[in-house]
Every structure is written in C-alpha cells, then in structure tokens.
C-alpha cells in the first residue's frame, strides 16, 4: 500500500495521531534543549559529515584495515554480500557452537536482513532484549522507529501484552512496574543465553574495535554473559580513528533523545577469556548506494532517529506507514535504492520542508535527496496516465505565456461560478477538508495592464 493510504488509515483516529505527534515532538524538543547548549554544535556536525564523507571515499581500505586489526585482536571477521548470506553465516556460527538460545540487542541491520524469522525457522530462540524491541516482538510487529521501536504503542497496550505473554498483573499501564517485570523476564534470558547478537554503532579501523551504545545495558548484559558474541555491522559503520568517536558520541545521543551521551558506550576490542567474538560485515545494497553520487551521503547516517522525530509527516503518520525497515525521512532516501518500485511513494511523503536536513547530526541533505528520488521515480516507474499528462500540459502552458493567460481565465471563472459542491467534489482531494480560494474577477496581469493603460490615457 502507498504511504498516503497507510497514513490516511492512521489518521482515522485523530486523538492517537495527536498523541503520537506530541510524544515525538517532545523528543525533538529535548534534542533542541540539549544541542543549543553545545558550543560549536554546527562545527561538530560539519566534522561528522566530513569524517563520514572521507570514510566513504576510502572505505575499502578502511575495511581491510579494520579486518586486519580485529583479527589481531582475536576476533573472527566474516563478510556478507546480502541478507541471505548474513543470516546463513549467523546460523552457521550458532550451530557450530551448539547455541539454541540467543539474546539480541538493537540492530537495525538484523531487522533489515529479517534475521529473527530465519533463526526461528532454524529452531533457534531469539529474544530481543531492548525493551521497546521486546514489546514489538511480543506484539509480532516491526519497530516503528529506529530509536524508539515501540513509540506507537501506548502504556495500556504494553500492559495487556505483558499480561498475556509475561503473566504480569494488571497495572493500569504503570511503566515502572512494567519495566521492572521486563527486567526480571530478560535477566533470566541473559543468564541462560548461549550466544549474544549485537549491532555496531561505530567500528574503528585503527584499532579493530567497535562501539555499541545503549541506555538499558542490554547489549552488555548479553555480550558479557554469553560464551559467543556476534556483532553485525553494515560496511558504512567504519570510522577511521578512535579519536573520531569524540565527534560521533557527542552528536549521537543528543540528537537522538537529548541525553548528553547514552548510559553505556561500550568499547569492544578483544573477546573475554574463553569466549568467542565474531563480526559480520554486511553490504546488502550499500555498495550500490555508494555508486550514486546524489544519494551516497545517505550512508553517513548514524541512526539517531532525529529526522523522524522532527518530521511533521512521520509524527502524523506513524512509522508503520512507511512499510520499510527504516521509516521516516532517512528511510525514504534509503529504501528506493533497494527497490525503486516498491518504495516509490516514500520520497513523496514529504513537503520538502527541510527540517530533517537541518536536524541531522551528520548533515545528510535528506530533503534534497527526496527531491532527486522524485525525478528518478517519475521516469523509471510507471506513473498514472493522468498525472503524467497533466504535468506535460502544465509544462507546455507555463512555457507559453499566451496559453497561460487563457487557462488562468478559465480557472478563475470556474472557481467563481461553479457551485461549491462541484468544485469541492470527490476527485478533488483539495476540497475534501479545505475550501478553494474564491476566483478573483481580474488576474494580476489584467490589473496591471489596466493600470498601464490608465497611466497612458
């Protein structure tokens, strides 16, 4: 279904839209309060952008350097060209280690690769340990936001979900109680896990180490207890040097939630004694995106979610309306690179207001890329005949002043003289909830000519 269809379904419940909008606006507001207190914030964003752009321009070499150092650290490094290979690699590692129970912390990459259903099909239990992800996992949904996966669920829905699956007592949606119960439930899972899977926020070429950021401590609880740790990363997670973390860790949490830093920024380098650490480096379309000069900056993304929180459309349509792994503005420039036809409505789910680009900590020109995807989509995917023809006609009219004058006259006459019911009738989406302007008798052109004539006489 198109974004606009799903969005209009979401909008049937206006109270819920208001609630969703306010919850996310609150996060955007916290971000503002936080970043406006950082001296040199814009310079920091420039650095974030510059380091990522440089990284992409030398990515193959940095990957090789990273691999070399990681191996020296005693980490096993694997490469996956696509989701299928990624999933297979993981299952192979798990089988090798006889691992049947897995705890997984947040990783949009494993979402993208649909790892969970694949593991389950292989008789492996996988538990998402981030509270928000656990909530959507129990609800058999996908995350609706990359930082706040369950932002679309209210406390009462979580209450009911936990009663059903975790046997909790009814609590009128008390977040404190529900979080406490989740803590107990997941502690058991951490203690009994055979392997832990985590994402990677930053992988440092210089040291072969990688950093994972969480607030809940779930990545650490998993990785430091289980005998096997598998970390999955997209190729673009590389940064050249450790000192660059100084830039990115300052940007990330402030942009995401307004916190000055996440509770835990864990720097993994070597496996702990007697355990194994694997890193899976995944392409899955990224090198393809790298080949597109107009769109390659989308690979700068550090997954802070700020563009979602700020997007007036995202806030009012919900993450699921994008029907993609990564929703919101950044998702709308990434997804078409993967499947132009399937995601062809996403770049149009924007007013091009530009807020996303200004909020982005690594200065991705998101709204310009949305505009550019539009130009490609109209050429490369089938367009409604009417839309195409009307655009063509418009192009001709605007190229030709005399035609423009005639068409304008007819339009104004219709607005003035046709009954409202006709003007605002069905096929006209404008008129469903809005009035059209009253057509004036005289256009500006006509007024101007009249004035000129009066001046002369």
């Amino acid at each position, binding site marked *: 279904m198109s*974004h*606009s269809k799903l*969005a*209009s379904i979401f*909008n049937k419940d*206006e109270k819920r*839209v208001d609630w969703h909008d306010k919850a996310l606006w609150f996060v955007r507001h916290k971000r*503002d309060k936080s970043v*406006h207190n950082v001296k040199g*914030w*814009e310079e920091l964003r420039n650095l974030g952008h510059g380091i990522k752009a440089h990284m992409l321009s030398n990515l193959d070499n940095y990957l090789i350097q990273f691999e070399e150092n990681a191996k020296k650290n005693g980490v096993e490094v694997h490469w996956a060209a696509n989701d299928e290979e990624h999933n297979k690699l993981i299952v192979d590692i798990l089988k090798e280690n006889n691992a049947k129970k897995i705890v997984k912390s947040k990783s949009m990459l494993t979402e993208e690769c649909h790892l969970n259903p694949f593991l389950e099909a292989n008789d492996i239990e996988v538990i998402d340990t981030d509270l928000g992800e656990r909530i959507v996992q129990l609800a058999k949904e996908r995350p609706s936001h990359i930082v706040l996966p369950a932002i679309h669920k209210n406390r009462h829905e979580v209450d009911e979900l936990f009663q059903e699956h975790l046997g909790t007592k009814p609590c009128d949606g008390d977040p404190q109680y529900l979080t406490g119960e989740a803590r107990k439930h997941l502690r058991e899972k951490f203690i009994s896990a055979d392997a832990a899977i985590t994402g990677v926020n930053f992988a440092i070429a210089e040291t072969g180490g990688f950093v994972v950021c969480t607030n809940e401590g779930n990545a650490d609880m998993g990785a430091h207890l289980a005998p096997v740790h598998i970390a999955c990363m997209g190729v673009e997670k590389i940064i050249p040097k450790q000192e660059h973390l100084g830039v990115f860790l300052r940007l990330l949490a402030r942009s995401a939630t307004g916190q000055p830093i996440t509770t835990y920024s864990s720097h993994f380098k070597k496996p702990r004694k007697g355990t194994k650490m694997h890193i899976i480096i995944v392409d899955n379309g990224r090198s393809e995106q790298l080949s597109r000069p107009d769109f390659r900056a989308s690979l700068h993304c550090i997954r802070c979610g700020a563009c979602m929180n*700020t997007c*007036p*459309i995202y806030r*009012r349509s919900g993450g699921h309306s994008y029907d993609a792994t990564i929703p919101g503005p950044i998702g709308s420039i990434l997804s078409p690179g993967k499947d132009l036809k399937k995601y062809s409505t996403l770049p*149009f*789910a*924007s*007013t*091009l*207001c*530009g*807020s996303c*680009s*200004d*909020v982005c900590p690594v200065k991705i020109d998101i709204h310009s890329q949305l*505009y550019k995807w*539009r*130009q490609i*989509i*109209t050429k490369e995917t089938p367009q409604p005949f009417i*839309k195409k023809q009307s*655009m*063509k006609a*418009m*192009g001709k*009219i*605007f*190229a*030709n*002043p005399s035609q*423009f004058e005639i068409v*304008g006259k007819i339009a*104004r006459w219709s607005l003035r003289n046709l009954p409202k019911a006709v003007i605002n009738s069905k096929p006209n*989406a*404008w008129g*469903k*909830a*809005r*009035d*059209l*302007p009253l057509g*004036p008798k005289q*256009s*500006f*052109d*006509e*007024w*101007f*000519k009249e004035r000129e004539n009066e001046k002369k006489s």
Partner: protein
Amino acid sequence: MKVGLFIPCYINQLYPQVGIATIELLEKLNVDVGYPSGQTCCGQPMANSGFEYESNGACSNFVENFKDFDYIVTPSGSCAYHVKKHYDIIPQTEEVIKVRNNVYELCDFILNILKIKDLGASFPYKIGVHKSCHGLRGLRLGSCSEVVGKQYSYIEELLQEVKGVELMPLSRTDECCGFGGTFAVTEEAISVKMGKDKIQDHLDSGVEVITATDTSCLMHLEGLINRNKQPLKVLHIAEILNSNL
C-alpha cells in the same frame, strides 16, 4: 537599479491583491519596477512532483523574461528558492547564472538590498508569523529552531516596525503547515492534519491574522479556516507592509 517583479502563477490568477500590494510597496520605496508580461511560472509545481524535465520550458521562459534586470523580486520565498536551487537543469549560461544570483524574496530584498526597515506601515492586529519552509530553511530568511546560532527573522524584523502590530508567539515556531505543492493532494490526510494543527497553534496564541512570505501556505491554511469557520484571517506579508490602517 532595475528591478523585475515576478508574480507567481497562483498569485497572478488567484490572489492578485498580493501582487498589487507588492508592486505598490516597491513603488512606494522608489524602486524602478518592471513587470515583464511574458512571465508564467518558475517551474516548481512540476519539479517538486518529480517532473523536473517537463519544466525546462518554464525555466527558460523565466530567464528570458528576467535576464535584463539587476534584481528579480518576488513575493514568494518558495519560487525564489526554486530558481536559486533547482535551475541547474537548464544550461548554465551567463544569463541563467545572473538570474539565479539576483532573485530575491520580497522581505529579503527590502531589508538587505534596499536596507530599509521602517516602511511607514500601520496594522493594528495580533499577528502570527508562519515561517514558510522554503524561505526559512531554503533561503535562510530567518534562523530555524533546528540550527544552533544567532536568532534572526527578516519578516519579523520588518513587522516589528509596523505600527500597531503585536507579534504573537507560537508553541512550534517553525513547523511546516503541510501544503507542500502536490503533497496537499497526494497526501491529503496528513496535509490537512498538519494545517489544522498549525492553525490551532495560532488560535491558542490569540492570533488574529496569520501572515507569511508565501501565499501557497496561506491558501492551504485559508482553505481550512474557511471550511471550519474559524476566527482567523490570512494576509501575505506584502499586504501588511503596504497597509495603513
């Protein structure tokens, strides 16, 4: 200094009073204004819909009409932005480059080229400023809430000098109104919801008149206000700056 006036297509046809206020205002300020009669549209409606390639004719026509002026002034941040940012689809001749460099939104032109702040206007109402996105984040006609740095706003600087104007604060200073060109139609539900929320913010703040640098946003808001019979008026900034009430 020869100034060419560009009146966007929808203003020409649907809101001529905005064009009239603009030309009267500029003439009051002793600007030598020319209005080339062959102008139509900057090409934005097609381009933003993804049909940039159908807008070449409109772009060329624009340049043809305005190439001989020192400045091109328009009561639309959005159109000025489009010419500046997206006219890379036609060959970059000297004329094209000149036109792109010299196109100005009205407030920007008055404040930064004419260097006039007090226009002698008076308008005794409570005003809510809608900061149209393309002017704000495209042309940087003011600071936006996302970016850290000095706070400024051209439209508010001019309004502050208008006698009787009371500028009302909004809870969300620069959220988009939801117009977005064809977005208003293709994403009708969200567009309407955004507009409603925007209007509510103005109502909550006690605004009597909403103004902006772009008539397109105002047309969208006005459509909702009229349909819902709300106690608000919309006026383009040129109309306020040209008032003497």
